């Protein structure tokens, strides 16, 4: 009986949609609750400052500018008589940037980082070119690990790190649940709906063992 089978299948489809009708939504209600971006998220490029002195880490080596595939980064760092570079200007045009992260990889001096920020819509096209000062201001509270070899003893960077905020990129350490940015905790997860669950700290530890 074809028709009986057809009706059965039609009802089965309705059953699936009807079943979902009773479930809790998985929506994150954006302005009120926000998705915690993973630490590696490539939001915008910021300039990092030294944690002690507050000065920019950038030495003006122009490596990021050479690495940029879109020509978004402009570094102006003329050399003086002693062949030493002085950083005069550093601008990033976010309308050209393709958020590939090559500049971050190219930088040897911990001078720039892609920070997990995304809310920067504007109604003025020109204001998307950010100069050194803006980039530095935004980069001030961005956490990072100092991997520069020379000058800085390792102890200092350890101490400079705020407690409970492992800004560890190596990912070998078990993630601290309180400050693990990769764990999206925006939604209260319900038990019956697996999609809504995000990995919790316990599971992470289980998986590692």
């Amino acid at each position, binding site marked *: 009986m074809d028709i009986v089978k057809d009706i059965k299948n039609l009802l089965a489809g309705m059953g699936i949609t009807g079943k979902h009708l009773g479930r809790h939504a998985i929506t994150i209600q*954006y302005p009120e609750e926000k998705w915690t971006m993973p630490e590696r998220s490539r939001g915008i490029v910021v300039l990092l400052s030294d944690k002690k002195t507050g000065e920019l880490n950038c030495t003006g080596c122009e490596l990021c500018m050479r690495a940029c595939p*879109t020509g978004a980064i402009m570094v102006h760092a003329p050399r003086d008589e002693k062949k030493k570079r002085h950083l005069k200007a550093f601008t990033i045009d976010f309308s050209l940037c393709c958020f590939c992260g090559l500049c971050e990889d190219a930088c040897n001096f911990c001078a720039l980082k892609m920070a997990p920020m995304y809310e920067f819509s504007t109604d003025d*096209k020109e204001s998307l070119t950010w100069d050194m000062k803006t980039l530095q201001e935004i980069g001030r509270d961005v956490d990072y690990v100092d991997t520069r070899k020379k000058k800085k003893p390792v102890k200092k960077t350890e101490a400079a790190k705020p407690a409970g905020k492992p800004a560890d990129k190596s990912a070998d350490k078990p993630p601290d649940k309180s400050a693990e940015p990769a764990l999206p905790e925006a939604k209260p997860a319900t038990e019956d709906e697996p999609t809504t669950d995000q990995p919790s700290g316990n599971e992470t530890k289980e998986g590692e063992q």
Partner: protein
Amino acid sequence: MGLIKKVPVYAERIPGGSLVLTTLETVLHQGQAKSLWYLLFGTACCAIELMCTGASRYDFDRLGMIFRASPRQADLIIAAGTITKKMAPRLRRLYDQMAEPRYVIAMGGCTIKGGPFYYDSYAVEKGIDHIVPVDIYIPGCPPRPESLLEGCIHLQEKIKKQKLLDWQEK
């Protein structure tokens, strides 16, 4: 539209008219801002993020935004993706087909200035502001869904701040 453009002119003449005008202004602009129906206009990568924003996790419908396939019924073009020189006249045409009041969001680097295709490309339009007036620029390549939502909320705030008298100049 024609009538509404004249309302402020007449309202100013009657006593207490400005009060009526402000109330009217608020109501009308609230209506515009809270029901932005967007045109399904996705060309490239950003279109996938536009789809994701409409999907369950981010849900455009929360902001009162639903998609319309016909430009006549849409209030907003989200130009999602690269606009090439071949596509540019079509974008203009779609914009012209839309009914006033209409808004444009430039989503992603490609629409703002050409993005990754600014240099060395012979086919990409370097910014859609040469073609249509843009209200909000959202950088990103592609922007995250939250960026897009933030841009839309930004646009809503912008609409609410409009004045009825501005319409006459448009």
